C-alpha cells in the first residue's frame, strides 16, 4: 500500500493568526515526516494496490504539535483497524542547564534551546523518527535519548489504556466481554 499524508494547522492554532495553506513549507515538512514514520510501522503488505490516507488537522498549538500528531495518528490507525508493528509514540525533550525537560510547551520552545523529538516503537525501543533542532552537546545526547524513550513509553501506557477502555465499551454494545 501507499501512505499519503496531509497535515495542516488551523488559522487560529498559533499565537499570531496565519492563513495556513496546504502547500505551506512547514505543513509539508510535517506531512512528509508523518508519512515516513507510518510507512515504517504499518504492515503495508497487507493492503496491496491500495492507498492509506492520513489527514491531520491541528486545532490548537502550544508546542509539541509534531509529537501529538504522531500519537493521534497511531490512535486513529488503531481505531480504523489498520495493522501496525507496534504503537508509535512520540515525545520531545530539551536540555536546560544539564536537566532534560520532557514535553516542552510553546513558551519553552521559544527559548531556542535544543529541541529533540523522537518517535519510538515502545516495546522494542526501536526509533522510527528522530529530529533535532538547534545545538545539543554530545555529552548530553545519551541522557536526552533515555529520557525521551521513557517519555514515549509513558505515553504508550496511556494510549493502551484508552484503547482497551474503548474496546470494552464497543464490545459491550454487542454483548461481548473481551479479555483485556
Amino acid at each position: 500500500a501507499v501512505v499519503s499524508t496531509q497535515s495542516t494547522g488551523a488559522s487560529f492554532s498559533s499565537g499570531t493568526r496565519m492563513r495556513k495553506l496546504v502547500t505551506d513549507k512547514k505543513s509539508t515538512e510535517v506531512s512528509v515526516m508523518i508519512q515516513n514514520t507510518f510507512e515504517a510501522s504499518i504492515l503495508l503488505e497487507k493492503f496491496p494496490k491500495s492507498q492509506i490516507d492520513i489527514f491531520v488537522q491541528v486545532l490548537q498549538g502550544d508546542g509539541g504539535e509534531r509529537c501529538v500528531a504522531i500519537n493521534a495518528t497511531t490512535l486513529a490507525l488503531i481505531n480504523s483497524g489498520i495493522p501496525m508493528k507496534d504503537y508509535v509514540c512520540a515525545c520531545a525533550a530539551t536540555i536546560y542547564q544539564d536537566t532534560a525537560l520532557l514535553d516542552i510547551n510553546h513558551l519553552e520552545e521559544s527559548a531556542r534551546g535544543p529541541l529533540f523529538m523522537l518517535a519510538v516503537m515502545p516495546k522494542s525501543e526501536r526509533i522510527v523518527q528522530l529530529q533535532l533542532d538547534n545545538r545539543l552537546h554530545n555529552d548530553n545526547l545519551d541522557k536526552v535519548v533515555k529520557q525521551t524513550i521513557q517519555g514515549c513509553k509513558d505515553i504508550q501506557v496511556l494510549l493502551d489504556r484508552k484503547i482497551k477502555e474503548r474496546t470494552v465499551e464497543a464490545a459491550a454494545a454487542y454483548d461481548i466481554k473481551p479479555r483485556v
Partner: protein
Amino acid sequence: MASICLSTAEHKYIVESIEQDYRTDGRSCEDYRQIEVETRNLPNTNGSSRCKIGKTEVLVGVKAEVVDVDIHYPMHGKINISVDCSATASPQFAGRGSALKEEEILTVLNLLYTSIDALDLASLCIVKGESCWLLNIDVLYIQCGGNIFDAASIGLKAALHSTTMPNVTVAGEGIEMELEISDDPYHVWRLNTALCPICVTLYQVGQSFAVDVTEEEEECSTGHIHVGILSSGDVSAMEKSGAGNMDPEALLEMIDTAVKIGEEIHKQLDEHLIAEGQSATL
C-alpha cells in the same frame, strides 16, 4: 462530504417522506437536529466557538488585529471571514479539493455580514480616519454532515458574542500617535451581537421544503435558499442556489416558517450564551 450514492428506491423514499412531513429520522420538515454550542474553547483567540448540528461540526475562531482604516469607511472597523474545510471532514477536501466548497460557504457568510450594522463596525474604530480593529474570523469544518451553512452562522454568532476586545489608549497626535493595547484580561469590552443574523437554509425536495437536511436529503434536493434572520424576526439577506425552480407561493410560506424557526434559534442561543457566560465568570 463523501459522495453520497443513493439508489432510485432510496431517492424516492426520501423525497416522499419529506413531502409527507415525516422524514427518515422521524423529524418534521421544520425540525432541527440537536444543536450543541460551546464557546471560549480556543485560548489562542479573542473569541471562539464550536457548533455541532447532528454530525456537522464547525469551529470558529475570532482574532483581532489593529490595521489602517478603509478609505471608503474611515469611521468603521473591518471583518475578514475565511472558511477552511479540513481534509478530516471528507477525503474530497484533500489538497485543493475544498476550494469550491469553501467559496460557496464564504459567499453565504459574507452575504450575512455585508451590512455594517450586523456587527456595529463603528465600535471597532479606534482612531477615526486612522486605525481600526480588523476581526479575522476563521471557520473550520471538522465534520460535514448536512446543513453546513446554518452551523457556520450559529458558530459565528456564538464566537462573536464570546469575543473579548482589549482596550486601547491613544497617546500623542498625528505622526507621533501611539496606540497602547491593554494586556489586562479583565479590562476588556464585548461586541454587540444583537443584530448578528442566523442563516436558515431551506432545501426544496420534491414539492416541499425542509430545513436542516442531512447529506442524503441534500442529494435529493433540487435547490436551496439561504435566509438570513435577525433575532427581531427581520430578514436581512436571502439567496437562492441550485438548479431547481421554485413555486413562489410555497416559497413565501416557507420563508415565514424559516423566520419563526430563526427567531426560536436566536432566543435559545442567546439564553445559552448568557448562561454559559455567567458560569464562566463564577
